[in-house]
């Protein structure tokens, strides 16, 4: 038995915060995307040769989208569950007739929705700067949704784990951002020396960006099947951790 009403109110409650700061939610991705295009697309990009037959301005779009989606999914979901823990309002969620999974669906669903919305804004903004065509819209959407959900789950786990604001920031700042920048968001790994190409293969973000880029331009650093597999592996790992948290009550209940 699932408490659908509870999932709905948690979801709407989380989305409300997003709508209340709608201007900020929309304006900041538009601004940052425009800045990236001015700097990397027009100023620097004009001096960079095509990458795998795609202009540099176009090439960075999937990476740019993934950068925002990953960091925002994590920060939205982690903040969403951390904040009630921090203020103490979590008591209400813990004492309500809802299971951990109901809570999870509400919070992660809202965080993933926000990230999807953000991705849409970035892609729409980008289309004003470059002529954007998506080769495989279905796969583009599939990669996007899977990534939003997987990283929102990951963010939820971080939000549960974090006891203070510092811990909350540490993973997105010190782990995710470097991984995204070094995962071929703004370059093809074929540009790297052979050793670093091998090292990059250990970076999970590479597979996300590569698969996502393939859905746009049919070019990729690793094969699409492998990309898809890696996203699903990451998603499964997060579900596994969440299931363990649910069983043990880790950091939620004493």
């Amino acid at each position, binding site marked *: *038995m699932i408490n659908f009403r509870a999932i*709905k109110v*948690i979801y709407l409650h989380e989305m409300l915060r997003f709508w209340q700061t709608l201007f900020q939610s929309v304006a900041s991705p538009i601004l940052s995307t425009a800045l990236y295009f001015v700097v990397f697309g027009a100023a620097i990009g004009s001096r960079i040769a095509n990458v795998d037959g795609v202009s540099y301005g176009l090439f960075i779009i999937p990476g740019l989208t993934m950068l925002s989606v990953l960091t925002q999914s994590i920060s939205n979901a982690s903040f969403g569950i951390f904040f009630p823990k921090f203020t103490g309002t979590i008591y*209400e*969620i813990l*004492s309500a007739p*809802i299971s951990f999974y109901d809570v999870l669906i509400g919070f992660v669903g809202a965080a993933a929705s926000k990230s999807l919305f953000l991705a849409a804004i970035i892609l729409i903004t980008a289309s004003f700067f470059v002529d954007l065509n998506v080769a495989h819209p279905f796969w583009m959407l599939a990669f996007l949704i899977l990534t939003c959900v997987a990283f929102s789950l990951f963010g939820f786990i971080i939000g549960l784990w974090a006891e203070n604001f510092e811990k909350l920031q540490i993973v997105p700042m010190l782990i995710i951002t470097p991984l995204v920048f070094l995962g071929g968001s703004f370059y093809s790994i074929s540009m790297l020396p052979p050793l670093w190409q091998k090292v990059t293969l250990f970076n999970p973000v590479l597979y996300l960006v590569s698969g996502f880029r393939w859905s746009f331009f049919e070019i990729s650093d690793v094969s699409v099947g492998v990309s898809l597999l890696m996203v699903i592996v990451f998603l499964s790992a997060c579900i596994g951790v969440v299931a363990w948290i649910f069983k043990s009550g880790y950091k939620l209940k*004493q």
Partner: protein
Amino acid sequence: MSSIVSIKDLSKTYNSGFEALKNINLDIKKGEILALLGPNGAGKTTLISTICGIVSPTSGTVTVDGNDIITDFRKTRQMIGLVPQELTLGAFEQVLQTVSFSRGLFGCKKDENYLIQLLKDLSLYDKKDTEVRALSGGMKRRVLIAKALSHEPQILFLDEPTAGVDVELRKDMWMIVRQLQDKGVTIILTTHYIEEAEEIAERVGVINNGELLVVEKKELLMENFGKKQLVIELRETAKEIPHMLHKHNMELTDDGLSISYTYDAKNAESNIQEMLKEFTDSGLLLKDIRINQSSLEDIFVDLVKLK
């Protein structure tokens, strides 16, 4: 009265090794007001948090209306409302909004009329569109009560409802509690104000160091554990208690002007009469008599000290 909450051999040891609850057994009767009295850190909050599902028990069982709080948590939590000790509220939400959120969280259908009436009953209606952060402490406490009652629970837990609340609001709070009882809600409140337990509770449970020392009807508790003291003021200073009165539990004050006689309230009659007769025979002259009765506070202090 049948019991609505049944606690059997409940123990809780936190990860730190702290034993917050030790083998608690308690039946809470349907429709009663039970006060859990104890000093800070006694285990009151842990006990109610366990029943509400916020803390996992280490051992023992709790059933609510016959359903286990772990295996049938949806059924048991549906019946329970909790008003926490701290004023924990989201700062930016409006009053009606946060109360509706609580109702939804408990899976109840939207019912604007019920919530509006609830806010009116709690004198919150004027503030229904006010952001929670703009409310005074007392108003926030009312919002917490509204949230706890939003899903029409049959059992209400109030954790220190009047801590840090002014006298007027405290009296309001007691009135709200009585009104809820009239509607058939079972109320369990924790407090370290003895005055509060004395004022509104029907039964009182005393908790200290994680142990439930006693649960008794308030009057019975005072009768069983209370002591009475009869103080006899003397016309003339006495140097000592006359030999014939030694068998009674009597003490002479330092100034020699009064004698106090402590007796068991339950079989008082015969002893007092006998003592008074012997007092007259002893030649001491009586000036005045007064009786001191121990309050719930004295009983509480004695009970807690004893352990």
